[in-house]
């Protein structure tokens, strides 16, 4: 199984690589794990991970700077229809557009928009930083993603994905109000939290993603 983490200069990918490598080794899952910025490689992937930290429009600009990359990701998701995982800004890039700093178009995989978190209460601090427990709202994911049933994951974000279709919401996290923590449909999944920073719980999630057969 070829697992590719997309490298588009959005930040350090070592911890993500290390987490996947550790999970595969510990659980004896045979994977060919690669960090790649080559759209031709991505065509051959069985599973694709789109990371991303920082600012939405910077991430999007870095992604489209690589010739053929946006199309390769698009083809992987829509034509090959293989398991795809977006993490943090990688998840937000799955939206139609973001309003972070300047309005920027996303990849449009999930009918949603990325907006600043505006909590109902003034005592809630922004960014949402730290460990928070999620609530699985789409029980059809219970079997493949047992890791999502309960537990704390590490979040760090000031913007949230607002989904137009409630059926795309897989899990939520409460921070002054319910925020989308996991969104997905068919072969694609996006997580607002960082599995690679979420210690054992995150490793369980990565294991579930590696075994997922959507």
């Amino acid at each position, binding site marked *: 199984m070829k697992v590719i983490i997309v490298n588009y200069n959005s*930040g*350090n990918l*070592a*911890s993500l690589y*290390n*987490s996947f490598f*550790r999970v595969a080794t510990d659980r004896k899952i045979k994977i060919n794990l690669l960090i790649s910025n080559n759209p031709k490689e991505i065509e051959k992937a069985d599973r694709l991970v789109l990371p991303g*930290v*920082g*600012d939405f429009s*910077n991430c999007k600009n870095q992604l489209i700077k690589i010739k053929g990359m946006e199309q390769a990701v698009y083809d992987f998701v829509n034509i090959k229809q293989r398991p795809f995982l977006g993490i943090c800004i990688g998840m937000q890039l799955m939206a139609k557009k973001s309003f972070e*700093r300047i309005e920027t178009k996303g990849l449009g995989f999930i009918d949603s928009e990325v907006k600043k978190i505006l909590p109902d209460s003034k005592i809630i*601090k*922004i*960014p*949402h*930083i*730290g*460990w*928070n*427990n999620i609530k699985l709202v789409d029980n059809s994911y219970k079997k493949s993603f047992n890791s999502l049933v309960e537990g*704390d994951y*590490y979040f*760090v*974000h*000031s913007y949230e994905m607002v989904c137009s279709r409630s059926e795309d919401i897989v899990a939520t996290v*409460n*921070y002054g109000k319910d925020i989308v923590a996991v969104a997905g449909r068919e072969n694609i999944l996006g997580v607002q939290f*960082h599995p*690679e*920073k*979420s*210690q054992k719980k*995150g*490793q369980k999630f990565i294991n579930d993603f590696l075994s997922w057969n959507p």
Partner: protein
Amino acid sequence: MLKLRIIPCLDVKNGRVVKGINFIDLIDAGSPVEQAKIYDQQGADELCFLDITASVENRGILLDIVNKTANNCFMPLTVGGGVKNVEDIRKLLFAGADKISINSSAISNPDLIIEGANNFGSQCIVVAIDAKATKNSRIKSGYEVFSHGGRVSTGLDALEWAKRAVKLGAGELLITSMDRDGTKKGFDLPLTKKISSNVTVPIIASGGVGELKDFVEGFKLGGASGLLAASVFHFGKYKINEVKEKLKRAGLPARI
């Protein structure tokens, strides 16, 4: 519910973890990589790595040690010390840091906060403030900011500087009480409370923890979102879990 964070801090000098009292008299406490592994296993919520003499010695941070530390922990890592410009921030993020703490350079060049937040997002820019109580009547909050590892008096009011840093784009503030640092007398609660109740971003309080009750007070009375400690963890006085169990017993949200 968001959990309160317990953050061990590795104060690093010449590639070794050290811990001083009131910012001087350093005692060796081991290798940062080994310490990081231990705290990861203990379930620390984050790790903080401060190269405490980088600014004073006017050099960059030790990238390879940051990299080795990052590769050995599966939790968020904040790195600081001697960060002067956007390029320094970029290098540290690529070495494996998740958040960058800036202190002296933010004071001499506040635009660095704006540039850092615009390039990498506010969530990765932590402004660290070293504060000391003062009787100077021009400093209204009663706390003055010091730079360069507590060696240089800036004349800045800690509360005003905190508010300004947030306005410029800081996503988090790390507030260290110089009066309490290493003394084991507990966090400076008035300082922590003054800042936490006046800014919209999370506050990490640091300096002075000695007993388990200090952690409870730091959250309950100081209004901190996270608490930083060094010597009580490095020298094995408390394990991370003991602290979290104490928090739970006090009715506070902790991740166990």
